[in-house]
Each structure stands twice: as structure tokens, then as C-alpha cells.
């Protein structure tokens, strides 16, 4: 799709990069040890405004890592987007004590408002990333997560060691911020100055807190009480990661911005104070730096504390300023992060805005104007597409395929080979049998009898996948393997 790519990144070696040939090998040790059914690449994002380049880098890296993991290790992958809707929406001071009280985005906007916000800033980008990489994604809000019995059990389990974990979670003074918004108005004391743990047991815990308007109140946290549990950043990550570490079917890989490498030291310390589990694998993505070596901070630039660094474009600070649609932004990001991931030395490092500007400026222009979604194929099927004898591709109806339509392009990929096709028609069926009987098995695979095909397809897609609905995608070859 792109013109000749002669852009070269030069990166020094480092300990991590020196230990592996591919960036994605970072997930391999745990894959080998655990043998999961699938891998979820988890990205958490505060949804308190327009994202900046750093956020997009993390998200794009998650999709590309998922794609590469699927290809390299033959395991099903997904991207799980955690929308942190407990970010403060508003802060006010208690007139009596001047303690800060905060209202979360969730309490201010409600479930529908949060969905709108995710739709406004992220949905188009994620749909486009899913198209570009062939990786499906899920969205989960913090509010939904904290309400789940499993999350609450995990939190309650930490309370027995609160005296130990409070130091890694708040090393300067040992006071962790546990916020329980007032059940009447939803505001909570931000630094929990007057929030107290009254009682804790295996099945629940009682807390007391004080509201500016409604005075003292008590809340009970159990698996099924509606009490909202608003944990500060490190505590939230501890609980979230411990919960993920218990899942032996899906391996969660936390994808985080590079600055989190420092923060995770404290999460690891807290893990060490609790029994049993080890943290899930984490992949830290390149940080975007200013010319001083500091992390690019939209807030500091907006407040005039620092000038925009060399090479910083408005879209780097606010991606909605990108001149083009979501697809063109995603294509640019996929190219950029793809370059980084191509060598561990390029991925496990940071980039200044000047260097990113240089790379993006040298990015090859799209030559065909075609945007093709990628789909991976086993060699035996790829060869049939490549010689034009396979004209129906079978897929289950993942959310990222809901917009697939005639006229779209699909690039089928197998190893280093790819073949570009055009979609002639998309037909939807309830089952694989119905699809094969209606479309004709010879169009799906001219070299294999119907029953054999059915068995092969069902080895790839289990019944829960088939239940999503089945797609017959009629294709025609545009260009044979490159």
C-alpha cells in the first residue's frame, strides 16, 4: 500500500533489547509457562479529555503487539481498553475544612455520558486500529470493573495486609487514598483525610467517611453492595493486576507508557507484601520526550510553564488536531509504531518530539490510496487465495468486522507474503453448515470436501465464536503476493 520505505531509525542497544530478537518476545516467557487460550493486551486510559500522541502510541502498540503475538505464537489475542472513568471531573473545597472533594467522570456524566466520551475520542480510532490489524477489542470502564464481585474480593483480600501495602502505595507517609463517594451526592474526600476502615473481614469491610453536604456516613464493601470503590492510581493497579494474574485461561499483558516503568516498582513492592501471585507481564511503550529529556506534558505546555518543544505539532498534544480522518491517523501511527516494533532496540527506548517529527515527515506517502484491513491466513488457505481459486473467506462476526462491506479491501497475510483482495459481497449466516451449504464448499476450499472443511473451521472457531454469527466474504484478487 505504501511507497518505498527508506526511513531508518538508529537506536543503541540496551539490556532488554539485547536479550531478544523481536519486541513481541517480551510476552513469550509467560506464554510458555502458562499456555493460555488467549492473550489480552490491556491498555488503561484516563478519559479526561482529548488524547495526545503518547496515549495513541500506547494504544497502537497494544493492537500491533496483539497482531504480532497472534502471528508469532499462534494464539488468539484481543485488546482490552480500560476507560478510567474515575478520573476527577470536578474538584471543590469543603468550606469548613478546605479538604478537597472530587467528583468522578462517572458520577458527573453517568454511564451514557461515559459511553459518549469514549465514542467521541476513542471509538473511531479503535475501529480503525481493529481494521488495520485484524485484532478485536473490548471496552471496559473502571466503574464496571470495580462493581464486579471478583474485583471487590481482590480488594477485600488486600485489607488484611493494609499495614504492609500502605508503604509501597504511599511511601512518603503510608496514608493510602481510599475514596467512597457519598451515597447521596457522589462526592468523595479526595485525600481521604477522614475516611476510616472500621471493620474488615473475608466477606466485606465497613468504612466511615465525611461528606461536605451530608455529614458522616458509613459504607459497606462486599461482593454485591453498590458502594462505589474509587481507588487511587497505584492501589487500583495493584488490585487490577492481581485480578488479572488469577486468570489462567486468558493471559493479561499490561501495555503501559514508558513512565509507568518507574511507577510499577511500587506496584511490585505491594505485590511482594501480598501472598501468592506474581504480577502479569507488562510492556512499556516508548515515551515521547521534549528536548530536555522530560516526558512531553500537555498540561505544562497549556499552562505556559514550558514552551512546545522542537518538532511538536498541535496533533501531538491533541490528536483531534490531526489534519485527516481517523483512518489516516491510524495508518500513520501503525506505520510509526510498526517501525519501532521492528527491532527491540527501537521499541524499548524513548523518542523526542523532534525525532518523531523527523520520522513522520519522512514517512512514505500512500501510493494506491487503498486502505486494506489485514487478515491472517494459514499457508494452505493463503495459497488458494493467492492463485484466485478461493473466492469465499469464512470469518465469525467480530465487532471490528461489523462495518465490512462490498468494495472494501482485505490484505491476506501469511508469514512475509501478502495478497490484496477486494470484497465483492458479505453474507451473514447463523452457522458454518448453513454457510457452506449456501455458498458451496468449493468456493471456500476447492481442494477439500465439505465435511473436512467443517471440521477444520470448527477447530479454529469454537461454538462461542460461531454464536457471534458467521460471515461469508466473497473476494476477488486485486494483486497477487508481493
Amino acid at each position, binding site marked *: 500500500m505504501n511507497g518505498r520505505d527508506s526511513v531508518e531509525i538508529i537506536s543503541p542497544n540496551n539490556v532488554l533489547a539485547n536479550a531478544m530478537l523481536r519486541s513481541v518476545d517480551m510476552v513469550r516467557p509467560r506464554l510458555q509457562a502458562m499456555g493460555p487460550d488467549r492473550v489480552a493486551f490491556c491498555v488503561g486510559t484516563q478519559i479526561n479529555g482529548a488524547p495526545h500522541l503518547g496515549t495513541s502510541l500506547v494504544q497502537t502498540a497494544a493492537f500491533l503487539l496483539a497482531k504480532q503475538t497472534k502471528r508469532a505464537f499462534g494464539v488468539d489475542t484481543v485488546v482490552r481498553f480500560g476507560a478510567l472513568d474515575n478520573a476527577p471531573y470536578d*474538584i471543590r473545597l469543603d468550606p469548613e475544612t*478546605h479538604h478537597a472533594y472530587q467528583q468522578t467522570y462517572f458520577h458527573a456524566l453517568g454511564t451514557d455520558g461515559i459511553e459518549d466520551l469514549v465514542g467521541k475520542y476513542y471509538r473511531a480510532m479503535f475501529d480503525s486500529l481493529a481494521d488495520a490489524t485484524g485484532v478485536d477489542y473490548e471496552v471496559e470502564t473502571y466503574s464496571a470493573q470495580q462493581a464486579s464481585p471478583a474485583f471487590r474480593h481482590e480488594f477485600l483480600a488486600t485489607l488484611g495486609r493494609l499495614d504492609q501495602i500502605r508503604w509501597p502505595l504511599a511511601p512518603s507517609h503510608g496514608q493510602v487514598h481510599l475514596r467512597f463517594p457519598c451515597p447521596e451526592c457522589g462526592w468523595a474526600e479526595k485525600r481521604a483525610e477522614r475516611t476510616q476502615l472500621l471493620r474488615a473481614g473475608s466477606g466485606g469491610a465497613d468504612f466511615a467517611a465525611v461528606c461536605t453536604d451530608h455529614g458522616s456516613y458509613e459504607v459497606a464493601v462486599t461482593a454485591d453492595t453498590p458502594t462505589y470503590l474509587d481507588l487511587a492510581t497505584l492501589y487500583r493497579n495493584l488490585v487490577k493486576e492481581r485480578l488479572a494474574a488469577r486468570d489462567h485461561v486468558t493471559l493479561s499483558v499490561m501495555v503501559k507508557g514508558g513512565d509507568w516503568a518507574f511507577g510499577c516498582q511500587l506496584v511490585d513492592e505491594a505485590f511482594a507484601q501480598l501472598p501468592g501471585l506474581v504480577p502479569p507481564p507488562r510492556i512499556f511503550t516508548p515515551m515521547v520526550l521534549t528536548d530536555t529529556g522530560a516526558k512531553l506534558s500537555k498540561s505544562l505546555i497549556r499552562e505556559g510553564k514550558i514552551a512546545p518543544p522542537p518538532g511538536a505539532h498541535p496533533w501531538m498534544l491533541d490528536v483531534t488536531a490531526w489534519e485527516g480522518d481517523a483512518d489516516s491517523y491510524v495508518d500513520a501511527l501503525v506505520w510509526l509504531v510498526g517501525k519501532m516494533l521492528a527491532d527491540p532496540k527501537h521499541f524499548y527506548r524513548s523518542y523526542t518530539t523532534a525525532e518523531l517529527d523527523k520520522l513522520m515527515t519522512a514517512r512514505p506517502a500512500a501510493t494506491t490510496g487503498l486502505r486494506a484491513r489485514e487478515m491472517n491466513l494459514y499457508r494452505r488457505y493463503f495459497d488458494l487465495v493467492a492463485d484466485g481459486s478461493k473466492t469465499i473467506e469464512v470469518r465469525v462476526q467480530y465487532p471490528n468486522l461489523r462495518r465490512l462491506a462490498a468494495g472494501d479491501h482485505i490484505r491476506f497475510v501469511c508469514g512475509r507474503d501478502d495478497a490484496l483482495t477486494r470484497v465483492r459481497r458479505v453474507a451473514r449466516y447463523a452457522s458454518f453448515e448453513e454457510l457452506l451449504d449456501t455458498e458451496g464448499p468449493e468456493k471456500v476450499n476447492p481442494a477439500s470436501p465439505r465435511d473436512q472443511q467443517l471440521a477444520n473451521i470448527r477447530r479454529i472457531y469454537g461454538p462461542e465464536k460461531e454464536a457471534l454469527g458467521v460471515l461469508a466474504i466473497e473476494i476477488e484478487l486485486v494483486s497477487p503476493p508481493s
Partner: protein
Amino acid sequence: MSLDQLLDPSTPPRRYVITGGPSSGKEGVFAELHAQGIPASEGEFAREIYRKHRDLLGRHLQVGDRRAYSRDVLEAFVAEYCDHAFGLRFYNRGIPDGYGWDAFFGLGPYPELEEASRVYRYDAVFVLDPLDDFDSEDDLVWAREREIRRVHELIIQGYYDAGYRPIFVPADEASRRVEFILAQLPIPTL
């Protein structure tokens, strides 16, 4: 004179203020003092007076209501000062706190406050450093959070204006802060 001697209720009165802006951890420090059996203010009566004014007004106090509130708080501080006749006692805020809080609301010092600050002197003032830097992890600083810093700074300034040299207590857990305060007590030698 040792701490044990100071704690002897028959010794002359020694008055120590522990103050600081919002979120500096005063609640925890006073709870620790009480737990150790060291004489210290119970609660914070400025807050009780606030609630009394609020209940009378039927709303939170506004700038125009602050002077009357400030005078009532001053009166209570003076009474608390005078009630203490023997031994050591820690005060949850002191008379010069009025300078800082009034300044925060744009009010200048008034004669009764000036007079009380001159007459009723404390033996030392401890200022608790804030337990937070009020920055968020994405460098976002809320305007309201800046007010917390400003209150803290104005309280410190008020004590300097009243002729004190405060002793600053680093952020730490309450028991270690109490340990620090007790170690720093400027006590007279016999």
C-alpha cells in the same frame, strides 16, 4: 527539663501549637498524641464554630460572614489558652492562624487579633508539611488545589508576622511526626 517532667501537670504551663494547611495530617497527629496520653486539643473547635454559623445562616459561610466567624474563633482560642494553667499542652491551631485564614478571604488583621497575638504567646509552633504536592500524575493542577497550597502558605506567613519561627514537621506517618515533634520541643533547662 525532660518530657516526663513537662508532662507533670504540676509544672508551669507550656503551650505548643501544631498547625498547617488542609491535608497536612493534623487529624492523625492529634489522634496519635491522644493515644500516647499527651495533653492535646480535642477536636478542632474552629470547625464546631463554623457549623454553628452555618446552621444559623442556613448556608455555607461567604466572605461577608467571615469576620464574625473569625472573631468567635479568636475568642475560643483565647479561652482555650487561658484555661490551661499547668503542664504541657498541644493546641490544634493557634491564635495567629487567624491571620492566614483571614488573608485567604481577603481580610486584613483586626485589632483584637493583633492584641491577642501579642499577649497570648505560645512556646513553640509546629507546622505540618502537606502530605501531598497537589499535582496530578498528568501534571494537571486544579485551581482549587492551588487554594490549599495558598492557605498553607498564608498560615505560615501569619506566624512569621506574629513573631514566631515555626518548626516544620516533614510528611510522614503520624507516629513518626509525633516522635519528631517531641524530639524538637524547645523545653527549658532547669
